[in-house]
């Protein structure tokens, strides 16, 4: 399953020049407000006809301006969760959810599961005007999921939802990605969601693709930190569950050592991805004792990137993988951080949020 987008479109004042390839899994489109994210997925859905270019899924074109191909929306088999919910006002919640059912070739997703996950059971007989903002968005997600699409387009689907609800929905999207093998184009401002779900990241800036590639590569590139946002910078590690300890902690093995995290819902042996925020890693020259942090990973400094401000981003080798750490320049100087220096990365167990631990698809 691969999606390839190469389109240009001119709005008069705004030019979109977007070209990227997306492989299996989730492709996140990340960019500031007005950078062209919705425009891209509208083009993929066939709701906007780009002035020129090609959009293919698995090599077969949905749109090709040169070949005059423009497949109508309903034949593209995309499920689209719109930025605005766009529920059908004359239908009940249940009728909205079931709208796409008629066109199913296969009902992959059990309706009741989705209703339960999204907490929609008490709302089924209501009309959309009687829903809260977040409820509408949940129905919109359910409606798209239940249409059994070949490709899911999600435009900030979780922006209107509270953290708890997000944490309920994210694992579901992971399952879709991993078990149903459903490719997803995912627009979000929230790097937490992106880092957890995405296999491929497309960084959009002002209508142009600034960088596109595998998530782990982009997230561990200190040069992209300003674009991603310092606060959201942080690499992802792949890990495997080894033991669930009786005190509620789960031990993971990654290439750089063991990690203890609060209970992870995954069977021993399962592969996981763990995002560790750059600002949550503390560096120590010696192995510390008597502290509340349980994770101390031996690492080697690979690159120190001093920013314009008071901070520095340190790229660390950790086994086969990389971590990013954000420290102050003052600390970097005081500790004498230079490439090649061995040191210890201290990560609090609890500072790795539930939301930052995600299921890992074998290809990621």
């Amino acid at each position, binding site marked *: 399953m691969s999606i390839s987008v190469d389109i240009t479109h001119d709005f008069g004042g705004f030019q979109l020049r977007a070209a990227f390839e997306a492989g299996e899994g989730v492709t996140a489109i990340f960019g500031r407000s007005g950078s062209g994210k919705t425009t891209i997925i509208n083009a993929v859905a066939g709701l906007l006809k780009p002035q020129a270019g090609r959009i293919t899924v698995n090599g077969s074109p949905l749109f090709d301006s040169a070949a005059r191909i423009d497949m109508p929306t*309903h034949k593209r088999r995309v499920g689209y969760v719109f930025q605005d919910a766009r529920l059908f006002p004359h239908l009940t919640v249940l009728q909205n959810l079931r709208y*796409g059912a008629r*066109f199913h070739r296969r009902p992959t997703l059990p309706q009741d599961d989705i209703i339960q996950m999204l907490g929609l059971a008490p709302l089924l007989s209501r*009309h959309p005007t009687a829903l809260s903002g977040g409820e509408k968005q949940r129905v919109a997600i359910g409606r798209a999921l239940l249409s059994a699409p070949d490709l899911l387009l999600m435009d900030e689907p979780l922006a209107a939802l509270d953290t708890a609800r997000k944490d309920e929905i994210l694992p579901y999207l992971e399952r879709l990605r991993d078990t149903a093998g459903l490719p997803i184009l995912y627009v979000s401002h929230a790097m937490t969601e992106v880092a957890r779900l995405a296999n491929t990241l497309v960084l959009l800036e002002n209508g142009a693709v600034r960088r596109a590639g595998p998530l782990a590569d982009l997230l561990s590139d200190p040069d992209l930190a300003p674009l991603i946002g310092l606060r959201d910078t942080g690499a992802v590690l792949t890990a495997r569950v080894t033991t669930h300890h009786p005190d509620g902690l789960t031990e993971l093995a990654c290439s750089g050592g063991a990690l203890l995290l609060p209970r992870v819902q995954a069977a021993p042996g399962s592969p996981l991805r763990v995002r560790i925020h750059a600002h949550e890693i503390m560096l120590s020259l010696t192995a510390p004792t008597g502290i509340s942090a349980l994770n101390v990973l031996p690492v080697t400094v690979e690159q120190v990137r001093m920013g314009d401000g008071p901070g520095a981003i340190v790229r660390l080798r950790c086994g086969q993988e990389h971590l990013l750490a954000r420290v102050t320049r003052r600390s970097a100087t005081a500790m004498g951080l230079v490439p090649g220096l061995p040191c210890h990365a201290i990560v609090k167990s609890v500072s790795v949020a539930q939301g930052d631990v995600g299921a890992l698809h074998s290809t990621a």
Partner: protein
Amino acid sequence: MTDWLTPAEWAAVALSLKVGLWAIACSLPLAIGTALILARGRFPGLQLLNGLVHLPLILPPVVTGYLLLLTFGRRAPVGAFLYDVLDITLAFRWTGAALAAAIMAFPLMVRAIRLAIESVDPRLEQAAGTLGASRLWVFLTITLPLIAPGIIAGAILGFAKAMGEFGATITFVSNIPGQTQTLPSAIYAFLQVPGGEASAMKLVLVSVALSMAALLASELLARRATRRRQA
């Protein structure tokens, strides 16, 4: 009660209802289609079609009736075709009265429906498309329910017009009691003779009562169609 109106008058009442209902029932789908084309179509002859639809409103009814006679009369091209090939007679039959009523009501129905179509949010139709619905299915399941109030408004306007239409009808199908004598023809006849006003007013009241009942029903229907959406 039955004495209150003569048998001929009762027949006129029944006929008017029949004519009005058939006129609306048969022309409504066409009106919806035409409204759809006018609202969404983009082709050169669009404004011509638009003008054509409005014609019965612009022309004095007598002229419309005369043109109908020229087109659908037994000796006229279309009328002869309908009669010979499809065995449909319009001239001097209630069917002709229904045709006249439908044509007179048509611009009113089309406008109401077109206005409703134009206020449908196209983004909802797009959303239905992404869920796999073809354009026809989108129309049937999204557009049509959303324009229901407009369709109801169009139908009631059309029905009211059909109940009041007289000039085109009497010119086209004349006035044959039991066959083509609608309420307005009967009312007109009474008004032509000195002292006929009282009898005319009696029929006017009947006509108004029927139309008001239909109007009330349409309001309730429309309100239900809308309320469901906002409850």
